[in-house]
Structures are given as structure tokens and as C-alpha cells.
């Protein structure tokens, strides 16, 4: 009786085992890459808003402090999106006829909220608190990036859990002096890890990596 398989099948089967692992590996890698891509995480994608509000102009150009508008960032989990009234503090007097600002004026006249689109949309099973991060010396730009150079606001970080854990495991690499938290010009000095280690001690920063720190 002749052989069912030709001799060359030996080589083919060896190659296909290798190929199977390789192709599977590639698929896993491609999936992981796609998952972490800016397309999936929506990082670095400017978000269109009802009014094209520019942080570049208001923060970089005019030097307005973050807390002028985001008033609750030091006391609350939520940094606060300013009510229309805050816009009108200045825009009752300047740019009063700009068509771009008509939605703001209309909102003020009619007492209907502006429908800002949330840029940082964390899943609802994650509990993030701004006030504790600010109080422990995590600067705004550490997570939000160079907000003073964003004509339209985008999400700078991936907001994936690995990104949160990077800092929760090694806070000394990211912490800055409390006096610099709201500074958009702050550049970490070359010995920032050394300074960071001292700040971690001084501010009693714990490396919280338990699941229930954020998922509760």
C-alpha cells in the first residue's frame, strides 16, 4: 500500500506549526496595538464643541489660571465645567458681537445649558477624583498635556488602566511641588525623580494599586 501523504508533507506540517504560532502571535500583537491606538482610546483627537473654545488662547495667550473656570478641582472629584455665566464675566464686554460666541450669548439669554462634549469620558466603573491628585502634587499638565497649546481640546493620555498604574506604581516620577501644580510652564528638572522621592515622603503619597482604589 502506498503512503497516503507524500514526503513533502513533513516539511509542510512543520512550517504550518511555526506559521500557526506566528500568525496567532501577530494577531494578538495587532489586536493589542489597535486597542492602545489613539483611534481606540480617542487620545490626541480634537473634539468639536458647540463653541470652538481655545485653551491655547485663554491659558497660553491670556494666562488665565485653570481654577478661574474649573473652580471645584481642589475640593471635588469633578473639576467643574464652568457655567455660561463664567464666560460672560468677560464676554459681556469683549467679543460681544462675535458670531462664534452666539451660542454662549443664547445660553445666557435663555438659561439653557451649552451642550459641551465631554473630552475625557472615563468608563462609569472608574472613580477618579481630581481633588486628591491636585492635593498630592500631580500637576494638571501631567495628565492633560500642554493644554496651553491646544486650540481645540483633546484628551492627551490614553486613559487606559496601564497608564493610571504607571503613575500609581511610581508616583515619584510624576509628582511635582504643590506650588507648581497649576503651572502650565512647569518642566520637570533633571533630578526630578530624586525630588519626587522626597515629595512622596513629604506629601505622604501612598502607592495605591488595589482594585478598589478606583473600582468601587
Amino acid at each position, binding site marked *: 500500500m502506498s503512503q497516503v501523504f507524500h514526503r513533502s508533507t513533513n516539511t509542510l506540517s512543520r512550517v504550518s506549526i511555526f506559521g500557526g504560532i506566528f500568525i496567532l502571535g501577530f494577531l494578538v500583537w495587532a489586536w493589542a496595538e489597535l486597542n492602545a491606538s489613539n483611534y481606540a482610546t480617542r487620545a490626541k483627537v480634537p473634539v468639536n464643541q458647540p463653541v470652538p473654545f481655545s485653551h491655547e488662547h485663554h491659558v497660553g495667550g*491670556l*494666562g*488665565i*489660571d485653570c*481654577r*478661574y473656570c474649573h*473652580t471645584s478641582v481642589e475640593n*471635588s*472629584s*469633578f473639576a*467643574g*465645567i464652568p*457655567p455660561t*455665566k*463664567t464666560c*460672560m*464675566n*468677560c464676554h*459681556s*464686554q*469683549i467679543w460681544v458681537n462675535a458670531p462664534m460666541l452666539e451660542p454662549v450669548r443664547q445660553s445666557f439669554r435663555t*438659561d*439653557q*445649558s451649552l*451642550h459641551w462634549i465631554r473630552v475625557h469620558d472615563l*468608563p*462609569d*466603573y472608574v472613580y477618579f477624583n481630581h481633588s486628591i491628585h491636585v492635593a498630592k502634587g500631580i500637576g494638571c499638565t501631567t495628565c492633560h498635556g500642554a493644554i496651553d497649546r491646544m486650540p481645540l481640546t483633546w484628551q492627551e493620555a490614553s486613559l487606559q488602566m496601564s497608564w493610571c498604574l504607571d503613575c500609581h506604581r511610581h508616583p515619584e516620577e510624576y509628582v511635582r511641588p504643590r506650588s507648581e501644580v497649576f503651572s502650565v510652564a512647569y518642566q520637570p528638572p533633571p533630578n526630578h525623580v530624586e525630588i519626587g522621592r522626597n515629595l512622596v515622603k513629604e506629601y505622604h503619597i501612598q502607592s495605591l494599586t488595589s482594585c478598589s482604589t478606583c473600582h468601587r
Partner: protein
Amino acid sequence: MKPRNSSTASLRVRYPKLRIRISIALLLACASLACRRDMQDQPKYIPLRGSDFFADGRSARPIPEGTVARGELRADKVFFTGKSGDQFVDQVPFPVTRQVLERGEERFNIYCTPCHGRLGNGLGMIVRRGFKRPPSYHTDRLRQKPIGYFYDIMTNGFGAMQDYSAQVAPRDRWAIAAYIRVLQYSQMASINDVPPDVRQELNSELSTRSAEPKR
């Protein structure tokens, strides 16, 4: 003539639109597996999330008129209005410590400098961009105003200035008012007002600053 693929043909006859049905079923299966975001977007209110339930679409409800939230009873009239009777008070209703002044400086620099400038001379960035220039604090008229006057303006606004009651808490408004006094003193002070032990520090600071290259 017999069709080439008899089994497919007979399936087609028995189940017309079979292909469309299969693709829809596959699509639905994918959708139910991959596209549900119930955990990400739970039906609950987080700050400023919209609401279908209320006519104005706000989940954060305005406080009904005539109600007082727990801990927000404003019984201390002097503290919350800056007035005693009809008169502005001339004293901060709590002890002004160095911490209070530093808090005042910080809050002033956040909320007031855009128009009033760091020195309180009314030449802030927003004024340079066309906002009506507020008066400088360094006039006899404003130096003689009681401190409650400044608290009142922050609370209720004045002229082109909107009120800051929503942005600055009452205690911080007092701290800012106290810091405005600091600014007023600082712009009138001479070197003789500086305690001798700090004078040296001021001099060295001045000389290092003048040694810096002009920008």
C-alpha cells in the same frame, strides 16, 4: 438542463433571501457581543451628565427657591454680606493670619488679576484686550473704603464686573479683601516701613533682580 449546483439551487428555492438573513443574523451576533457598553455607560448621573427626565436636560437640579442646603444656612449676616445694618464693616470677621493673607494672594491671582492686574492697578490682561478698565486700588477713594465694601463687590458685582459669588467662597472673598489691603499698603510703603531684619533680604533680592538680563 440540470443546474450545476443543485443543492444550493434547491436551498434558494426553499429559503428565498437566505443570504440576507444569514448576514443580518451574523451582524446582530457581532453587535450583541462587541458593541454593548452597558458597563462603560451606566444609567446613572455623574456630574453634569444630561438627563432625559427633566425638561431643561440638566441632571444637576437648581436648588428650589426658599430652601437651605444642609450646612449652608447663612445666618451670620456680617460674614456673608460684609454689612452690619446698612453699613459696610471695617474688619474681617475672623482673625487675619499670615495663612489667610497667603490664601488671599493665591485667590486674588486666580480670580482678580485677569482684570485688576497683579498689583491691583487695573491693568490686567483682559483690560489690555478691551475690557473696561477697573479703577486702581491705589487711590484715596478706595484706600478709605471699609473692607466690607470690597467683599460686597465680589459678592454682588459692580458696574462691568460680574459677581464672583459662584467662583469664590465667602471665606476666600474675605481673604482676597484682606490681600487687597496688603496691595494698597505695599504701593504706599517706603523702605522705612520694612522691618530692619527683612530689609537686607529685600535689598539683596532687588540687586539680584536688577542683575538679571532685561527681557
